[in-house]
């Protein structure tokens, strides 16, 4: 409202005249402005619950993983370890394991064996400190009908009293660590990239949560933290968390960032098997170094009929499926089921019906 002598106000009645500011107009404008600002302040009130613990200067200035030298990485690891201890009460053993030369990881899964028990899903949740509420699971087991590899026909939410179901087979899907990954292509800030040992990793402190990688993944392997992850507590109220942590793999994540299966880097880069493999009750999962010709996975790729999902997309997955047998059968069905009358129920009566000729239906 202060007049500007050589630039009359827009509402000046006449050129060069004095502006007319009355009490009423001043009050009206004042009340209008004040109430507008009050409304603005009230609109911003929810921010009082905003968790600022993640907005430290150190975090803000932290550089991309690939730019962190050993000393800086040490500092970062210590800071993260302190934070984890403060926030969750768990003292982590946090490391940054580097890939070993001459190692490229490959996963193979025997589809003839998987019974769909989902122990791998939950072992992964436990090992990798996944959020329990909302529950996040890297692995999704598909119940597939016989005769089809079309995932459109999969059932994700099967809940039978007993698995496996004779009419279905089970196909667990997790990140395939593709050699030509679409997710790495689309990330605008290189928050996800592929490491020399074949694992596609995410720098959780760099990701901005745009979810372009989630849209790009053809296997629905990537997950987003829609809110702060929550964990379970034991009887004493302490957080249950796997303390063996790695920077690029299973340290606790925050809201707003992406995550996915990373082949349990905290284990595999230390030479161990991933958690999903170790828990599988039927030994359907195989893992190892493809560059070692004596490894299990090398043998499988050489001798078994392997295939990959959506091969036509050119992603070159490092996750192979193979069958070598017919569908698993359920327990509790009749003995010798499937052989028809060739082998009647044993009655201890000797060799009758046991010769090879019985198979052709000839009488003993």
């Amino acid at each position: 409202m202060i007049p500007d002598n050589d630039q009359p106000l827009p509402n000046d009645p006449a050129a060069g005249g004095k502006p007319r500011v009355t009490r009423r107009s001043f009050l009206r404008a004042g009340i209008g402005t004040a109430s507008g600002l009050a409304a603005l302040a009230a609109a911003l009130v929810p921010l009082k619950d905003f968790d600022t613990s993640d907005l430290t200067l150190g975090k803000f200035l932290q550089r991309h993983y690939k730019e962190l030298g050993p000393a800086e990485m040490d500092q970062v690891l210590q800071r993260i370890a302190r934070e984890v201890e403060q926030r969750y009460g768990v003292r982590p053993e946090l490391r940054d394991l580097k890939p070993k030369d001459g190692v490229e990881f490959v996963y193979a899964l025997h589809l003839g064996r998987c019974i769909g028990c989902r122990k791998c899903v939950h072992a992964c949740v436990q090992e990798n400190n996944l959020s329990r509420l909302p529950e996040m699971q890297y692995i999704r087991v598909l119940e597939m009908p016989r005769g089809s590899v079309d995932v459109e026909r999969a059932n994700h939410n099967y809940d039978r009293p007993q698995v496996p179901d004779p009419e279905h087979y089970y196909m667990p899907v997790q990140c395939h660590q593709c050699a030509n990954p679409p997710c790495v292509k689309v990330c605008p800030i290189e928050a996800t990239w592929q490491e020399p040992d074949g694992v596609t990793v995410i720098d959780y402190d760099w990701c901005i949560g745009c979810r372009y990688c989630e849209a790009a993944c053809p296997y629905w392997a990537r997950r987003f933290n829609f809110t702060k992850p929550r964990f379970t507590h034991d009887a004493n109220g302490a957080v249950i968390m796997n303390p063996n942590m790695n920077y690029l793999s299973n340290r606790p994540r925050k809201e707003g960032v992406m995550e996915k299966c990373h082949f349990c880097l905290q284990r595999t880069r230390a030479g161990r098997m991933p958690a999903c493999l170790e828990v599988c009750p039927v030994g359907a999962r195989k893992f190892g170094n493809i560059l070692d010709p004596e490894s299990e996975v090398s043998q499988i790729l050489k001798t078994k009929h392997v295939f990959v999902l959506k091969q036509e997309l050119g992603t070159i997955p490092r996750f192979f499926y193979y069958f070598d047998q017919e569908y698993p059968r359920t327990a509790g069905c009749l003995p010798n089921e499937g052989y028809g009358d060739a082998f009647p129920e044993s009655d201890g009566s000797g060799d009758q019906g046991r010769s090879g000729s019985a198979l052709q239906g000839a009488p003993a």
Partner: protein
Amino acid sequence: MGPSARGSPESRLSRRWPSALVGPGFLVLAAWFLYGPETVLVPAGEPIAVDSRLLSIAPRRETLGDPPSIEVEGVRRTCVECHALFEPSVETPKRLLMHAHVRLDHGINDRCRNCHHLQERDKLVLHDGNVIPFRESQLLCAKCHGPTFRDWERGAHGRSNGYWDRSRGQLVRLKCSQCHDPHTPRIPAMDPLVPMPGPRDPRADRGVSTAPHPGAQHPVFRLGGTDSGGSPERMEK
């Protein structure tokens, strides 16, 4: 910006009254922000826990060991202690007095002596009559299940726990009988762990939003006993 003595009353009115609404309007808005209804639903309730006993990586079965022994009336006894006392039956009896838990359902095998040596009861016998100890039982399986044995040796069949990198640790290949009951080798069916509503709908407190499948809502938390293959073999008296 003051009222003008000039101009009609209508125009004065039409000038003034809307501006009087600005203030109260914003204050009503402010009140709405501070005291209005909550528009946001976030997940509530307890995080889901899965009994970690269900996720044990121990082998599914405990084997008999070598020399094999079982508990009889509270005392550990080796095979020969009993079997030296009586003649073995050539044929398989219809009902076993001891080892009653054994249910033989192994394909075309219908006799104990297909695998167990008739005289040396703490040994196993191959098809050519060769005797092998219990700790080499995989050779016995191999005599019929050749391709599977070949796969097992390569690591394509069965579970390997431990280290893939043998320069840093041991790769433990589980043996046949650590997963398969030699008398009923088919792996029993299990109760699957159910996926949470979580992955389909992060707002878990609203329950399952789009799952059309019945029975998908019960909690995951289970105690032991639902996993029919989980407990190690027990001998019954």
